């Protein structure tokens, strides 16, 4: 699948935003601290930025509101509805934190739950597509959810460090989430690599009874919408390199840095720096992971090309 920057940004930013918002909703940070206030604003900006970015993918963004109508059948519609609905508790919580410097469990926990649901909806947009076998698994929402959680916790750790409240348990939670998320992702990717294709050129053409089927001529010689959208191919070696980079940047680096930050002491500037770098590494890692999520996924239509 074509790794469209708008979609990569959308899933990455909104995932981080919802992850952070979910953690903030648990009330783990001091609502009066400036870092927490910034955190709320940051979460909303990440979510909004992600959603905005997703509209760049639309042919007719002015009609985007229509996407809210089909929540009963379409995961994309559900995602849209949930995204908007989730703004209510999140804005409420943010208002309370930023303006009133307080935490209220109702919008907080509601925000956490709805954020998680929104992330699941996002993931289900992909996981529901049987045509993309790599995505069509429960592991996909699990990955998205765990990545959101891990991102949220890494960002939370950074904010905690900023407010001098980085606790070993917080760090431990972040480390655990990172391990779980990447562990899940490894499982996801292993599954993808071991898949035997559901559809083949033989089943796509029905000519398998005669022999092995190979494209002889494309219907039209130049690229078309389908090949541009679905025909993206990434080299195996290139993908392997990027995968390693994603693991290093998104898992190894944040885990080491967070552990180091935790050891540096709760109130040290060093801890702030280390946890900031950990968050940065995670973002880079996720961007790479998301690029691969699309680039490595093979669409059934390519059996015809």
């Amino acid at each position, binding site marked *: 699948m074509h790794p469209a920057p708008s979609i990569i940004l959308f899933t990455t930013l909104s995932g981080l935003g919802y992850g952070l918002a979910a953690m903030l909703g648990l009330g783990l940070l001091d609502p009066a601290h400036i870092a927490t206030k910034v955190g709320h604003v940051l979460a909303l900006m990440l979510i909004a930025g992600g959603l905005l970015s997703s509209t760049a993918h639309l042919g007719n963004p002015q009609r985007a509101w229509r996407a809210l109508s089909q929540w009963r059948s379409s995961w994309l519609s559900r995602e849209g509805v949930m995204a908007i609905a989730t703004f209510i508790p999140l804005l409420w919580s943010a208002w309370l934190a930023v303006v009133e410097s307080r935490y209220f469990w109702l919008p907080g926990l509601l925000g956490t739950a709805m954020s998680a649901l929104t992330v699941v909806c996002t993931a289900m947009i992909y996981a529901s597509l049987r045509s993309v076998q790599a995505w069509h698994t429960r592991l996909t929402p699990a990955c998205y959810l765990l990545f959101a959680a891990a991102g949220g916790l890494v960002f939370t750790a950074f904010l905690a460090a900023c407010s001098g409240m980085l606790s070993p348990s917080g760090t431990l939670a972040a480390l655990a989430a990172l391990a779980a998320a990447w562990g899940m992702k490894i499982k996801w990717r292993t599954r993808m690599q071991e898949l035997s294709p559901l559809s083949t050129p033989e089943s796509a053409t029905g000519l398998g009874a005669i022999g092995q089927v190979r494209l*002889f001529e494309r*219907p*039209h*010689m*130049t690229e078309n919408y389908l090949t541009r959208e679905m025909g993206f191919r990434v080299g195996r070696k290139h993908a392997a390199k990027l995968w390693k980079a994603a693991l290093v940047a998104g898992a190894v680096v944040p885990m080491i840095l967070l552990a180091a930050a935790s050891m540096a002491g709760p109130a040290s500037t060093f801890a702030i720096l280390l946890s900031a770098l950990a968050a940065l590494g995670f973002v880079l890692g996720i961007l790479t992971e998301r690029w691969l999520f699309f680039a490595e996924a093979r669409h059934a239509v390519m059996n015809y090309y």
Partner: protein
Amino acid sequence: MKPRERVALSRPVADEVRKTTCYMCACRCGIDVHVKDGRIRYIEGNRDHPVNRGVLCAKGSAGIMQHYAPARLRAPLKRVGPRGSGQFQEISWDEALATAAEWLGKVRADDPKKLAFFTGRDQSQSLTGLWAQQYGTPNYAAHGGFCSVNMAAAGIMTIGGAFWEFGAPDWERTKLFVMFGVAEDHDSNPIKMGIAKLKKRGARFVSVNPIRTGYSAVADNWIGIRPGTDGLLILSVVHELLKARRIDVDYLVRYTNATWLVIDAPGTAEHGLFARDGEGRPLVHETVTEQIVPAGTNGARAGLSGRVQLDDGRFAVPSFQLLAEKYLDDKYAPEAVSGETGVAVDTIRGLAAEIARVAFEEEIFIGQPWADMNGQRHQGYVGRPVSFHAMRGLSAHSNGFQTTRALHMLQVLIGAVDCPGGFRFEPPYPKPLSAHPTPHGRAEHFGSNTPLAGPHLGFPRGPEDLLVDEDGRPARIDKAFSWDAPIAAHGMMHMVIANAHAGDPYPVDVLFMYMANMAWNSSMNTAGTIKMLEDKEEATGEYRIPKIIYSDAYASEMVAYADLVLPDTTYLERHDCISLLDRPISEPDAVQDAIRWPVLEPDRDVRPFQTVLLDLGARLNLPGFSDGHGRPLYKDYADYIVRHERRPGIGPLAGFRGPDGDRTGRGAANPLQLQRYIENGAFFSVHIPMEAQFFKHANRAYQDFAVRMGFFDTPQPVTFQLYQENLQKFRLAAEGLRAPFAPQTHRERIVQAFDPLPDWYRPFGEALADRNEYPCHAVTQRPAAMYHSWGSMNAWLRQIHTRNPLYVPGSICDEIGLKDGDWAWVISHHGRIRVEVARMEAVNASTLWTWNAIGKRAGAWALDADAPEARKGFLLNHLIADLLPPREDGLRLSNSDPVTGQAAWYDLRVRIEKAAAGGGSEPQWPPLAQPEPEAHPSELRYGQEWAQ
């Protein structure tokens, strides 16, 4: 239905339907052009039209994009920069026509042969030929010489007809259909419709083609033959049929010259000619009375074998004995030809067996009584439901004439010509050779300001009809009808530029061409041709070919080399007639012709070429075009179509003649004729009576019908010429036995190629090339969605064929390490090209191929200079020499069939070498400047104004 599901289901398609004839290829289907707001909304096949019955191919369906293509020429042009620079100045029609008339008038007065007038893929040859004849130059032909003259000449000289325009398989009844070679470009919809009929009935379709695409892809059996060896395969099938005695003896005796006696007097001027009586009638041996009598003598039991003594003491044998002896020879046994053809012995034997089985065991009988030319009544038509078709796959080899003769011989031997289920003639064919003219163009045939003494093109009956001077030198610029190509019945357009450039046999002053892309895909040796067009005389600084007038509708490569460009209209903006005098659209059951008419008015300063030609004819005071005082006889082409009479009562169109429009074939001109055609869907059709539908070559009712229709003034039955006496005359000339003698330089070649019985020899291109150095064949196939070079300016069609790879057999790919997308050099003795390759398994193992004419020169056809057609597409033409390699005596002959002069495109031998990755195709030229730069839209949304 829910309210939201409402869509406008019953919108009228357009304001008006205008029915005309397609011209996206030469197939001539009927089309319904739906016009909305003055623009084309939709083009579909005309359901009532006999050619296509409502269907329409990709090309026809893309007419919109052809009609509105930015490559359309917009006004007459005068060249202002050097040739090939594309620098032109728009001029008025007055200036353009005055210039042309001045150039042409001077030549006509001084030396008319200094005009070479050749037309490409147009369908108005009866007009252009007449014009050239009245002008008086000997140098006129259409493009058949580089197209398919082998098909036409071999067919006419053997059975009095040919595939495509002069006949078709009996699609309704045939049970075994065998197609030879690529045929996707001509008669395309009828063949597709025919294949569909076969499939529906479960008839067997065998395709003989090195490449398994197009029609071959759906064939029940594919014979991936080695190019150029089809003749050998056919003769092997003939061998098998003779051996198994599966031939139609009755048919042979009735309809062929099998019984005619051939003089057996070696070393004499009449050896191998038919024995004739004092009236010139061929003689046969009447075996009951043991007498020699004229062929056709009632009640005679003419022998098919046996050496007999003629009254003059010489000996003679029936031609069939020669035929049988020749093909029964074991050198034609499947085992003997399998190696050369690459076809398995069992396959050859199986093909022969199936032909025999279907012809004789699945015989058809139609109980329609009929009478033959001898007055004998028959209870019905006996059908041998085996049919054949071939086109340029056989034609474009230097043995194509003989190969095609072999195929016709095969059809005749099993009695399958013009019978139910076989190959059937389409009126006005069959037409015996004797009804065709001989060629004109010798010095005594023309002179200053004088029409040519007769038609340019025809069939020499022997060397005495050649267009050569007393020293045997060619009279025509293309050397057609010379010893180089004695039966060049369609001329040799492919040699005109080379010969004019070389001044051999003489230089010309004006080269006048229409719709022929000679500066690109229509020439062999394209690079050399471009140089010839650009070459100047050192002494004078003038171009070697001083003046070039060219007419085309689009900015083709050739336009850039013209000095004067006469812009033609698109096919939807002009009148045309698809005439029985020319290349008809008849069906085996019906006589048909058709018109085009301007369904849209030109929005540019362009004129139909035929109208321009009539205008020039008047300006030049040509008889038949001018009243003698420079006043035109015809207002325009439409006027000519209606009022011109070739013979009294016979005009370009056969339908709606006579003052009341109720006469068919013969009749006075009808001023409302075109209107009647338009009302009738732009075509006219009259059915042949059932008692006249088969065995037309010998059917009394048909012959009478043909006379009534005005095809002929007297009946013209055809006796199939399995043994071709005219060829033997050339052989005798080459053996120095019969005057005029062939020049020494040509004798060996003529003796080899002019076998009076169908023969096979290795194509020259292959025979003269080093088989080890050039181990592969390279040929083209015709894509169904693109007609020659017409289509790259079409925004829809060019998406299907944006560039062309070279398809390489898998075994060769493995051997030299090629995979899809790699680049390779393809090298012939003449040149080298750099191409992108693609792997293929369904292909003859020694054959490389590509799609024809997709490669374009950068800047032509109003495409961006970086268009893939130019940067990655390519032509095989760069590898094909216009001349054969020099012989030991230094003589270089045209790379053509030695009989007909047909360009031998498919003789090409090459080798392939892997090239470095990336880059583009080679050779490349500097981009042509557009003659009329027009901003291209970066996006098309055709029809958006009608979107709901």
